[in-house]
């Protein structure tokens, strides 16, 4: 089969799944719906794999499958096709998306077994997958944007899936609108790029960037910054991260798929996709790095204090995304994508694991009511632990490799800085702490489960994905082993060679010093280890300790526990401000001014009419007087 057809199937398969389930949205047959949807996702994964192997067969210089289906829009010189590009980057992305996606679909069959609208759920899930594929496969900004917005509205639909709950519907709304703010920036960024390059095609833009002469850098910087605004929205960075924790209102598989593994990484993907452009604007890079580092630390601190299992994971996601942006900001694009992938594995795993826990706990999400679940949920516990080890950066687990690469680059890269590295290390410490805390509170220690709840291990459809993802979390890192280890162990860094052609290197990147690198690595391992141990002590050995600490730093704790009051500030100053402004516009501008002016005019006309009418007294001498006055006036005008 030709590439066109395979790519077509890759894209269409989830759409067909969507249509199948969408048209029978009333059906309650969970198994059928789930099977079809999972099959659709599986077929996509299959196609992606086939294409991936075909890509491998191609010579390294032209490792790229470009397919253009039809001309989408032609306006003036803007000619946009519905064209797709399967290259090194999109191959990795689509494999992650379809692979993890398929697993999550599978998991959902079990998870949604008792829902009354499973078809609708799977339809949305498939639609999301299709849009995500558009996002990562599109060969130009516009097709990417279609996917970009598409995943946004699917996320909106899925967050608000249980729409009868006001809060859940509101969370969906919040997610969409926050994303829209980012999208607006993205749009402007796209316009700016189009104004500079006259095209939306990634290839052409990147090719054009080989020679920066003649490119208006100010506009380019503005453009990239605006694109980054888009990324902050989609990828939940400061200051637009607020929607992601709320998005946990959706079903847990959704959180795993959309809000951990795939959609939220779109911003990273977009920037990596346009890496030559971003590299040419150092100012933007600095902003990205700083925002990333800040997000990483800030979200991690909030994660320390939360009690909701999904919220903890959500803040963890925000924090990990911060790492990715830190990586992008310092020019470590490869590391960013690497972390993106490993994060997709272990975070999806942990979300699904939490889903399994929640499922077992009958929709209970508060970790204070869990504990000691190790016994009841052995598989879940085991797989969850793998994710835990990966995320805290336990050596030889996948997260270790990717995170270490980022920390190293933030130190080593000419665009990096000591403070950025420091932030990364602190964040890593926090991560280790809150993740261990989560493990401890959920699975270890004494059971705090209410008596009426009887947790039990989930069925196989749910555990199989967990096992697969757990495995990936463990081994996923070996494709990008750091240099020092790689040299030592003679493991080639597949990752770097794979992306060699695609990702530009930060200009002025010096030789790595093995000593420096290993030192830093040790520091990070030490910090993470220490933090994990501390958490273990706090929550297993001496459960009273946290209380003591908290009471000592009450003010700070309240601040962090309430997420720095960011939501409240937004509500008070942005949302209420806007609503009040709009009301003022409506009541004082439309009704009070424009309409009133109209009425003033009509009142004036009416009163003038009334006044003139008074002149018609009915007295004929008065009328004769008018004649005389008119006569005098007319003659006077002419003569004097």
């Amino acid at each position, binding site marked *: 089969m030709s590439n066109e057809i395979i790519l077509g199937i890759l894209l269409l398969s989830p759409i067909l799944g969507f249509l199948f389930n969408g048209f029978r949205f009333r059906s309650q047959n969970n198994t059928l719906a789930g099977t079809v949807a999972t099959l659709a996702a599986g077929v996509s994964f299959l196609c992606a794999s086939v294409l991936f192997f075909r890509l491998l067969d191609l010579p390294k210089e032209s490792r790229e499958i470009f397919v253009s289906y039809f001309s989408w829009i032609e306006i003036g010189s803007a000619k946009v096709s519905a064209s797709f590009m399967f290259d090194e980057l999109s191959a990795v992305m689509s494999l992650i998306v379809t692979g993890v996606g398929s697993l999550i679909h599978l998991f959902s069959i079990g998870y949604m077994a008792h829902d009354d609208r499973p078809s609708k759920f799977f339809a949305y899930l498939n639609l999301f997958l299709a849009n995500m594929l558009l996002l990562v496969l599109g060969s130009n900004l516009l097709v990417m944007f279609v996917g970009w917005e598409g995943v946004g509205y699917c996320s909106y639909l899925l967050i608000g899936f249980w729409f009868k709950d006001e809060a859940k519907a509101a969370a969906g709304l919040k997610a969409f609108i926050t994303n829209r703010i980012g999208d607006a920036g993205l749009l402007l960024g796209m316009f700016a790029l189009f104004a500079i390059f006259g095209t939306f095609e990634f290839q052409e833009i990147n090719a054009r960037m080989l020679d920066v002469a003649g490119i208006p850098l100010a506009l380019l910087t503005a453009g990239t910054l605006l694109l980054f605004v888009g990324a902050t929205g989609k990828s939940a960075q400061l200051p637009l991260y607020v929607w992601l924790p709320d998005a946990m209102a959706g079903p847990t598989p959704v959180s795993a798929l959309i809000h951990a593994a795939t959609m939220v990484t779109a911003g990273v993907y977009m920037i990596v996709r346009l890496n030559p452009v971003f590299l040419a604007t150092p100012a933007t890079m600095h902003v990205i790095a700083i925002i990333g580092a800040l997000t990483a630390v800030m979200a991690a601190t909030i994660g320390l204090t939360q009690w909701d299992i999904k919220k903890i994971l959500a803040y963890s996601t925000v924090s990990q995304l911060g790492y990715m942006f830190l990586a992008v900001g310092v020019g470590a694009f490869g590391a960013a994508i690497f972390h993106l992938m490993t994060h997709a594995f272990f975070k999806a795993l942990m979300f699904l694991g939490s889903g399994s826990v929640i499922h077992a706990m009958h929709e209970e999400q508060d970790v204070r009511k869990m504990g000691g679940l190790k016994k009841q949920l052995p598989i879940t516990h085991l797989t969850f632990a793998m994710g835990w080890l990966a995320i805290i950066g336990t050596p030889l687990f996948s997260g270790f490799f990717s995170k270490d690469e980022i920390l190293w680059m933030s130190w080593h890269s000419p665009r990096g800085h000591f403070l950025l590295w420091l932030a990364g290390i602190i964040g890593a410490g926090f991560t280790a702490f809150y993740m261990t805390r989560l493990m401890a509170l959920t699975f270890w220690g004494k059971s705090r489960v209410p008596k009426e709840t009887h947790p039990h291990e989930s069925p196989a459809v749910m555990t199989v994905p967990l096992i697969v993802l757990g495995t990936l979390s463990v081994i996923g890192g070996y494709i990008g082993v750091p240099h020092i280890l790689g040299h030592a162990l003679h493991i080639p860094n597949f990752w770097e060679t794979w992306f060699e052609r695609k990702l530009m290197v930060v200009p002025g990147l010096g030789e790595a010093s093995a000593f420096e690198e290993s030192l830093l690595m040790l520091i990070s391992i030490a910090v993470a280890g220490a933090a994990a141990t501390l958490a273990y002590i706090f929550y297993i050995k001496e459960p009273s300790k946290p209380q003591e600490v908290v009471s000592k730093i009450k003010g700070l704790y309240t601040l962090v526990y309430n997420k720095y009051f960011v939501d409240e500030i937004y509500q008070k100053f942005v949302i209420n401000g806007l609503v009040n402004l709009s009301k003022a516009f409506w009541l004082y501008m439309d009704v009070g001014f424009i309409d009133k002016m109209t009425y003033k005019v009509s009142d004036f006309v009416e009163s003038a009419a009334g006044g003139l*009418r008074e002149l018609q007294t*009915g*007295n004929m*001498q008065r009328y*004769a*007087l008018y004649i*005389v006055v008119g006569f005098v006036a007319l003659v006077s005008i002419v003569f004097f």
Partner: protein
Amino acid sequence: MPNIMNSIALNHFIILASILFCIGMLGVLIRKNVVVMLMSIELMLNAVNLIFVAFSRYYGDASGQVIVFFVMAIAAAEAAIGLAIIMAVFRKFRGVEIKLFENLKG
């Protein structure tokens, strides 16, 4: 008879006529009794007649006097119709005061 115009300039007649005309006009404007108003209108027409005749004399042209002739006929006709209307109105309104005729207004 010698020409009067040689001793009294034409404008004297015109000014006299203007005065009469304005007096008539004032009468229409201020009198309460409609019959007197009608008389005032006759006064105005007469004033105009004076102008015609004066010019007629000045130019030695007969048409001015012919016009006066017509005007008189019409003025008489007007008076006749006017008085007939006043009679009809009087029967209806039981009075000829100007204040009575303010039903139509606005």
